[in-house]
């Protein structure tokens, strides 16, 4: 059985990471990175947004794509949850609906990597909760 990790191990990791990268510079310029927001209100969580955010963050790292993944509240497209907003550097934000792991994989490979459009894009301000409930 291996030894349980402690804060000492974290210090070693920090020394290793600090010695070889300029991480701090990058996180200070988020506009140069892919930015993703995952909607995380109650209904989004019930429909799987926790898995979506963790999958996206894990996979982007594995595939060496630098990105900032954060959460946001209801974006108004509740009928299509889990929903995410993706902003490529220098581009307008795009909202995708029904983002389970399979869809997230497709968004990474096609849209984020190659700028190709994929199914599931929600036209902004087209059919949001305000229009459907009033």
């Amino acid at each position, binding site marked *: 059985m*291996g030894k*349980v*990790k*402690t*804060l000492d*191990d*974290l*210090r070693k*990791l*920090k020394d290793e*990471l*600090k010695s070889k990268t300029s*991480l*701090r510079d990058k*996180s200070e310029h988020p506009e140069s990175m892919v930015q993703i927001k*995952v909607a*995380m*209100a*109650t*209904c989004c*969580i*019930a429909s799987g947004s*926790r*898995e979506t*955010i*963790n999958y996206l*963050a894990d996979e982007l*790292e594995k595939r060496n794509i630098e990105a900032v*993944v*954060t*959460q946001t*509240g*209801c974006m*108004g497209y*509740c009928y299509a949850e889990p929903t995410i907003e993706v902003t490529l550097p220098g581009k307008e934000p795009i909202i995708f609906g029904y983002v389970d792991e399979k869809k997230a994989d497709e968004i990474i490979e096609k849209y984020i990597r190659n700028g190709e459009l994929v199914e599931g894009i929600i036209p902004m301000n087209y059919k949001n*909760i305000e229009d459907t*409930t009033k």
Partner: protein
Amino acid sequence: MKEIALHILDIAQNSVNAGAGEISIEVWKNEKDNRTGFRVRDNGKGMDLETLNRLNDPFFTTGNKKTGLGIPLLRQHAEAAGGILHVESEINKGTLIRAEFELDHLDRQPMGDVLSTLISLLRAYPEREWLFSYQVNDREYSFNTRDIKTELDGLPVSHPRVIRFIRDMLQENMDALSK
């Protein structure tokens, strides 16, 4: 919600929305008392009496949508599993929410993936301070982001390698408690 851990994420999200800089999450399981549950405490903006009185109304929210389901849903699940929901809040000071369930109740949701909940919060809100305590019977493991940040000395908590490290560390320590 399929898991209690998803309620924890949802309730912690309320704390984030309330502008809390420090959020503490406690999760426990106590076989002797036949209880399991969690508590989320924050130093956010708190609630006034009117808000507190309307918390059980699924159509009450101060958010930008039409429903406020989080708390009513949690109360319903806790009460259906022989438990309770306790809410305390003071304006400009903060809020405490405690949900308890009967451990062996047939209608209780499984605790689910607490670790995944914590990691998603750390990833999304690395700038806040998170305290986490995990208790199994009379043993406890606790974690807080202040200690982590001191060790990191400016390196971001949300760095993928750091997140992976924290996930492994929490997993190992939580597993050790359950043994």
